[in-house]
């Protein structure tokens, strides 16, 4: 067996990282044991390919290999079991059985055809249980952060439901195997739950981002301030720059909705300047004086006479 990772991946010694990745992906597609379940020797071949890739895809390891400091054995991988070993006996009733590819075999009126599409056992058909549909309403923050909750089925039995973080209004959750019982050893059906998310008092969802109107006082707007801001995961401190206008949007990175597969959207804070609850004579006096010299016209350009 060749022990040179460049030979194994079939790339030149000066290949770019991109070339190496491309070569690996091509070979992996051809030799991954789970994507080629009938190809027995693919396991050794794939192990060799991924060991070579593990070494060359890491630029530091690659450099050390090029200098002769390490060899392929340093990147050896632990023996593992591929999915195909478990799946080779996929039969009806198993969680991953999928007979879609031969469902049409049963259209012919032939006992042998029925073997494929129904797989008769003990003189009766295995039938999957029926799917059931429910809807539930969840709090805004539970939908954003994820939560465990319970729904009560019409027959009174409680059912634990895990609401995934980032669930959207109108999304459907699937609880496999929680539906009606199967017949003749067939799998149980699924439960589908339509989720309605309650609006929040001040948060508003916008895709992966959350919008928030944040009231600030006149002095905070003019002078700037460090203020506490609610986020879906708890309050944080936000710096309002001095001379911040009403409507200015500040972005709190990663304080939005968790994304599938990692990361979060942002929290978009829109500042809203709020005057004091009661008119303050000192402020009024100051404004009168200030207006004498302030020649700003915020409505110019609107074509007003």
């Amino acid at each position, binding site marked *: 067996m060749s022990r040179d990772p460049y030979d194994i991946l079939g790339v030149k010694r000066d290949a770019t990282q991109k070339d190496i990745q491309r070569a690996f992906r091509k070979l*992996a597609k051809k030799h991954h044991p789970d994507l080629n379940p009938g190809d027995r020797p693919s396991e050794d071949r794939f192990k060799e390919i991924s060991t070579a890739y593990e070494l060359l895809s890491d630029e530091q390891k690659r450099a050390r290999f090029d200098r002769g400091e390490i060899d392929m054995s340093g990147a050896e991988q632990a023996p593992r079991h591929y999915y195909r070993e478990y799946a080779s006996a996929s*039969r009806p009733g198993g969680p991953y059985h999928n007979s879609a590819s031969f469902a049409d075999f049963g259209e012919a009126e032939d006992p042998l055809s029925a073997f494929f599409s129904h797989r008769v056992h003990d003189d009766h058909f295995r039938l999957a249980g029926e799917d059931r549909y429910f809807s539930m309403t969840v709090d805004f923050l539970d939908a954003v952060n994820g939560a465990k909750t319970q729904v009560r089925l019409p027959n009174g039995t409680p059912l634990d439901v895990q609401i995934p973080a980032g669930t959207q209004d109108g999304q459907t959750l699937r609880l496999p195997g929680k539906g009606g019982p199967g017949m003749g050893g067939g799998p149980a059906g699924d439960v589908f739950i339509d989720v309605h998310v309650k609006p929040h008092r001040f948060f508003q969802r916008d895709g992966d981002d959350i919008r928030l109107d944040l009231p600030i006082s006149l002095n905070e707007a003019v002078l700037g301030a460090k203020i506490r801001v609610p986020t879906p995961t708890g309050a944080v401190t936000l710096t309002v720059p001095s001379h911040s206008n009403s409507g200015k949007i500040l972005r709190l990175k990663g304080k939005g909705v968790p994304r599938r597969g990692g990361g979060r959207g942002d929290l978009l804070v829109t500042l809203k300047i709020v005057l004091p609850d009661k008119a303050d004579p000192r402020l009024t006096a100051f404004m009168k004086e200030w207006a004498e010299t302030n020649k700003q016209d915020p409505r110019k350009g609107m074509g007003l006479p």
Partner: protein
Amino acid sequence: MNELEFCLKLRIEASVLAVWIEQGWLVPDTTGFEQQFREADVARGQLILEMTRDMGVNEAGVDLVMELVDQLHSLRGTMHDLMAAIGQQDEETRLKILQSLDRHG
């Protein structure tokens, strides 16, 4: 193994696992108190990880591949049973089946 052990074993975040389950790529055993994962699920998870991390397959691609992999294995299981059943027939019957296959091929 439970959810935590499964995530530790594959070194993934619980949120990643939640996506896999929601997509139907993994179907843990939910008959008990908490959902349980089998060794087969670990192997399945490794396949999903390799596709997404190393082979550049996106979520829609994984969805398609898993669907076809499951179909393929189900078909292989049925084919295996059929071969075994044919193997149990006497010489003459097997020969007849072979001849019949020749005509179709």
